């Protein structure tokens, strides 16, 4: 019994139960339609599973495509910023200028340039997260211990071998940290990206329920967005433990 309680307390489920408890207390305290009861929300969630899955699928597809394209752009750009002094000197000020600007402000420009369909939504997400990935990669490469480069020199490596044995593995931990932040931001930005010219996506579903003042449905959409987050972060954790096994073992050792 003791062990069961210990396992329950340490499990992710316990965190979720606590969250539902706080939600229920808020619902009772505020006594407003805007904060529906968690039980009603869960009932609604399970009454429309296929509708929610359809919207979730569209959103996941947009996020995955945007993240993949951001990686394709951000990794080489981040490496170039770290290893090439001229590129660093030329583009670092521009990067610092663009990084803090709320990219959502460029939405009308993207709509004009790329239309109202999926391309403008995906490009908006890319524009939001690519800077994070670039900076993570740049910092990962810039932090490489100079002695590692000397070790590579002592083995007379080719530039390709230098990337394979040193630069790419050294930047991976930072890349995964950047990816974690990027996925969080891209999920949050779905809310804006899916509020025009689409009928699919969890952002659209939440906004549509909001405008109908159907708060139970709106919260079940928010719940689904949370589950998408759990799914993507867990997948990322798995991928990280495969690609960056030395980090996992050092964390295990510390624990």
């Amino acid at each position, binding site marked *: 019994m003791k062990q069961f309680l210990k396992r329950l307390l340490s499990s992710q489920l316990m965190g979720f139960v606590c969250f539902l408890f706080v939600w229920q207390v808020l619902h009772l305290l505020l006594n407003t339609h805007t904060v529906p009861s968690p039980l009603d929300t869960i009932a609604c969630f399970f009454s429309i599973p296929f509708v929610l899955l359809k919207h979730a699928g569209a959103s996941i597809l947009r996020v995955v495509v945007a993240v993949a394209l951001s990686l394709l752009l951000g990794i080489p750009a981040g490496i170039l910023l770290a290893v090439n002094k001229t590129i660093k000197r030329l583009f670092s000020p521009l990067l610092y200028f663009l990084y803090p600007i709320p990219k959502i402000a460029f939405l009308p420009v993207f709509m004009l340039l790329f239309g109202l369909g999926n391309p403008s939504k995906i490009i908006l997400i890319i524009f939001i997260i690519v800077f994070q990935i670039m900076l993570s990669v740049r910092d990962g490469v810039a932090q490489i*211990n100079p*002695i*590692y480069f*000397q*070790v590579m*020199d*002592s*083995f*007379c*490596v080719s530039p390709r*071998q230098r990337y394979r*044995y*040193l630069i790419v*593995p*050294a930047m*991976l931990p930072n890349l995964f940290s950047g990816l974690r932040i990027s996925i969080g931001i891209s999920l949050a930005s779905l809310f804006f990206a899916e509020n025009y010219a689409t009928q699919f996506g969890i952002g659209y579903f939440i906004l549509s329920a909001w405008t109908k003042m159907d708060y139970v449905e709106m919260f079940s959409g928010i719940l689904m967005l949370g589950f998408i987050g759990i799914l993507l972060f867990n997948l990322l954790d798995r991928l990280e433990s495969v690609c*960056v096994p*030395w980090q996992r*073992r*050092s964390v295990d*050792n510390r624990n």
Partner: protein
Amino acid sequence: MDHSSLEQNHIQLDHISFSFGETVVIRDISIALQRGGAYALIGKSGIGKSTLLNLIAGFLKPDSGQVTIEGKQVTGPREQTAFLFQELGLFPWQTVFQAVAMPLKIHGNTSDIPARVLSLLAELHLDQHKDKYPHQLSGGERQRVALARTLVGNPDLLLMDEPTSALDAMTKEELQSLILRQTQARNTTLLFVTHDIEEAVLLGQTILVLNEDGPLSYLENPCFGIQNPRESLAFYDETIQIRTLLRVESR
């Protein structure tokens, strides 16, 4: 041994000078090292010992003079020169096996890599650690992995910059005899920088003392290669002789 002769020597330094900006670090040094020899390089801190090692490794280019190995001028790092760094430079993302296999893969010696690596790991008593990462090893084990990584390609020259400075006395002794065994078995020329006079006498067949004005003093080491050198009187005579020489130099 004539250390300045231009005849068939493994490594030849001819009138080498090197400066960092305005500061002259190496002033007109000429040395000849013979194949398979073991040379200890000692001297005061900041006198240019590590710089000399870096010049021979090809990491630095001399302002004047030239370094030749096997009769060829050194213009950059060469495959057959191995360097054991003081900080070791083991990559956190490589297991022991991966670290030792890396030089073979880099140089395209892809045949029989697992067998060659495993046999070297066994010689260095690292076989049970082959799947561990550097942070899972002790200081002495890490040092042995770095040594295995430098030796796996059978280099003809091994350069070491204070190889045992961070180790405790027992681990240091183990590693010193390991270095000696491995380099002698391979007929590898060994040149190392150390602050430890005992280490210089244990590992160095010839002890090179770098002086303030550049040129070197040479001391042939009578204790080199004898059984249990620490138990011989000659060992202590040699250390006293070097200590006296360094004291005179520093005056």
